[in-house]
């Protein structure tokens, strides 16, 4: 009993992310055991070292020391005991790993492709999404590949990670017990925007998931400007940019902005408010700042975040604000 309590205690203090799956819980238990065992080993070795260093501090240059060359029994002891511990954690790890590598049957399959520098998520009904949306309490299998170089899909809260390799398929599975949003990272170095290659994994109820799938499949049929309006909402552009009148929220208002022949910049320069200006400002907001919004923009850069069709739809929406 005290042992389980110790593991639980260790878990609470290991700073692991939220445990959203059963696998995550069993991994954390094993990790908790390892942390406890490590603390004990460190206490013995470092504690012993400090104790000896103080106890046997040199008193005089003529100190006599013990002449001990070896002790077979001790040496066997400290070879065998670590070996047993190592084999225990090896076997314990194997059991969990085996579960992680057995793909469940009847799982919801989702294709994810890594591409410099975004994840493309594709569902069987043809919906494409920049984020992963899955139903709660359901086995989900992610089939991975990559377009260009090796990437690696990592969901810390599920304790899963798998490389996405061009030219081959790899897979991972999970079954989330928790609703909510979780971070997804790329963990295989893939170039310039490697650290920006993150996305979200949203766990929703089965009903919300079904509804989301249907809605998303209809989005591609919408006119461009309406699709742009949706992106404007989901990317939270609306929290800083006004679209109904000239009032400035945080960033400049976009109402009737498009088409201005002489748009003044903070640098004093004057440019034309056209498609290319918009494109540049969305991808890299610091490139040309509107008058009064310098010297640095608070807006995130969307380079690598939006697909080409999303970007075009967004620009069409801004053009329609009249």
């Amino acid at each position, binding site marked *: 009993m005290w042992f389980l309590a110790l593991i639980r205690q260790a878990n609470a203090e290991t700073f692991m992310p939220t445990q959203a799956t059963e696998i995550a819980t069993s991994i954390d238990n094993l990790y908790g055991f390892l942390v406890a065992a490590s603390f004990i080993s460190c206490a013995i070795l470092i504690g012993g070292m400090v104790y000896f260093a103080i106890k046997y501090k040199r008193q005089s240059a003529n100190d006599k020391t013990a002449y*001990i060359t070896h002790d077979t029994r001790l040496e066997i002891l400290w070879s065998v005991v670590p070996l047993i511990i190592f084999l225990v954690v090896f076997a314990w790890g194997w059991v969990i790993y085996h579960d992680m590598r057995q793909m469940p049957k009847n799982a919801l399959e989702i294709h994810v492709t890594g591409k410099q520098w975004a994840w493309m998520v594709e569902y069987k009904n043809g919906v494409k999404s920049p984020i992963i949306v899955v139903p709660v309490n359901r086995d989900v299998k992610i089939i991975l590949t990559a377009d260009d170089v090796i990437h*690696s899909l990592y969901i810390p809260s599920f304790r899963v990670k798998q490389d996405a390799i061009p030219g081959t398929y790899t897979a991972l599975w999970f079954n989330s017990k928790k609703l909510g949003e979780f971070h997804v990272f790329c963990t295989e170095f893939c170039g*310039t925007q490697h*650290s920006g290659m993150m996305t979200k994994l949203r766990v929703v109820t089965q009903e919300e998931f079904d509804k989301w799938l249907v809605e998303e499949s209809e989005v591609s049929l919408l006119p461009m400007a309406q699709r742009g309006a949706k992106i404007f909402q989901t990317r939270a552009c609306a929290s800083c940019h006004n679209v109904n009148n000239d009032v400035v929220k945080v960033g400049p208002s976009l109402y009737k902005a498009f088409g201005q022949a002489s748009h003044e910049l903070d640098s004093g320069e004057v440019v034309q408010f056209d498609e290319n200006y918009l494109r540049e400002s969305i991808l890299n907001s610091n490139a040309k700042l509107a008058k009064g919004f310098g010297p640095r923009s608070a807006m995130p850069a969307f380079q690598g975040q939006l697909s080409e069709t999303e970007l075009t739809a967004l620009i069409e929406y801004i053009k329609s604000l009249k």
Partner: protein
Amino acid sequence: MGQAAHGTSYINSEKGLMSWLTSLDHKRIGILYFVTVLFFFLVGGIAALLLRAELFAANVTAEGVATAGQIFKNGDTYNQALTYHGAIMVFMVIVPGIPSIFGNFFLPLQIGAKDVAFPKLNLASWYLFMIGAAMAVATLFMSRLDTGWTFYTPYSIRTGAAVSLMVGAVFIMGMASVLTGLNFIVTIHKLRAPGMTFHRMPLFTWAIYSTSIIQVLATPVLAITLMLLIAERAFGVGIFDPKLGGDPVLFQHFFWFYSHPAVYIMILPAMGIISELLTTFSKKTIFGYTAIAYSSLGIAAVSFFVWGHHLYVSGQSELAGVIFSFLTMLVGVPTAIKMFNWLATLYKGSIEFRSPMLYALGFLFLFVIGGVTGIMLAVLPIDVHFHDTYFVVAHFHYVMVGGTLMALMGGIYYWFPKMFGKMYSESLARWSWIFIFVGFNVTFFPQFILGAMGMPRRYFDYLPAYENLNRISTVGSWMITVGFVIALVSIIKALKSGEKAPANPWGSKTLEWMTESPPITHNFSHEPVVTEGPYEYK
């Protein structure tokens, strides 16, 4: 050349820069490496400081969108700094460091030889190394080198032209280390003084012996891999490039087949130094001489069969993962044996807290942490979570910096009086230890927690949740810098105005202390005859 009269130290035997650049004296070649490695350590260290400065603050919004950086304009420059830091520190500092500086200088002295077996080959190795180093420096002026030190395909096939030159540089430096390793193996087999049996060799010599075996056997595999990568880039042969039907993961297997044993190339010589320091400053014979000597060989042997633990999430089969995890556990055993033997050496000793001993005790402290976290990473499902996160970064810095670099510093202070015939300021040396030891823990311990929290490595930027710990880590890097500056000052000061060192200032028992400080060109005025083991403190 080398016609110095008996009684003249190797430093004064000849004068002028050319006498150094053409010297066949293993001690002078050791010093050449010392200067070279020190220079590259400085360059790699500056890169590390820039990386940590960039990571001082998050530039990412809560939505996960990157904005401009702290000191680097964008991810590209950061990625290059990261690559230079890794490649320089691994290939030009940690791998060649201890064997080429102390191995060259002290291996012949420790076994009572006049020089290494092939002095000309030894100098040729240094020139090869310098050619490689010059090529590596030349990549700075070419289009971006941003692959990380691992050169993973297919990214390394597609990125800037500098990759081919850098890979060529590593190839040539690898060649230098094969020649050095070969030289040491032959020296140990053929040039031991009368009475110097294998079981009377100092443990540092044993460690260099094991290291040399790995270098000679493993480096050619790296060389082949790098040649294939160059061929892939130049001629598109399609071994690694999936677009041409190649397998990019094959590169990882080849790469780690060398680079995992290379981890032991980095740590075994350090372990050798630690054995020397602990006996000397405890004034006590080493506990379990045979176990320590043969566990080095054991590590060397098993280290060839654990490379797959770098590939748990690469899509290799479950069975392969299980086998590699099992074998990795086995490497833990000889490492644990060494730890316990060192601890037992302290028992009933007479421990003197000289700065080399402080570095040795610091090594034990940090290496225990590096070791237990290594076991964690060997456990399959734990590694799935930690792979390519800051946990791994923290782990290998504890092993390579906490281990190898602490031992290197301890070795410098231990052998400095012998190498240069001067004593250094003990208080400056201790201050350097305090800053490096404390700063190291401040820098790298938070990275274990960052990794557990899920922060990926090689990130130019990170989520705001990781900011506090990153900040602590960056402050730690400044403390380490202060420590190394103090160490540099202590060395320069000692060289300029240190007191004359006696032949054996620490009361050590190994042969290098039986000749003058600094040694004469031919090392010993009479060939030593060995009648007992290396640590007979009775």
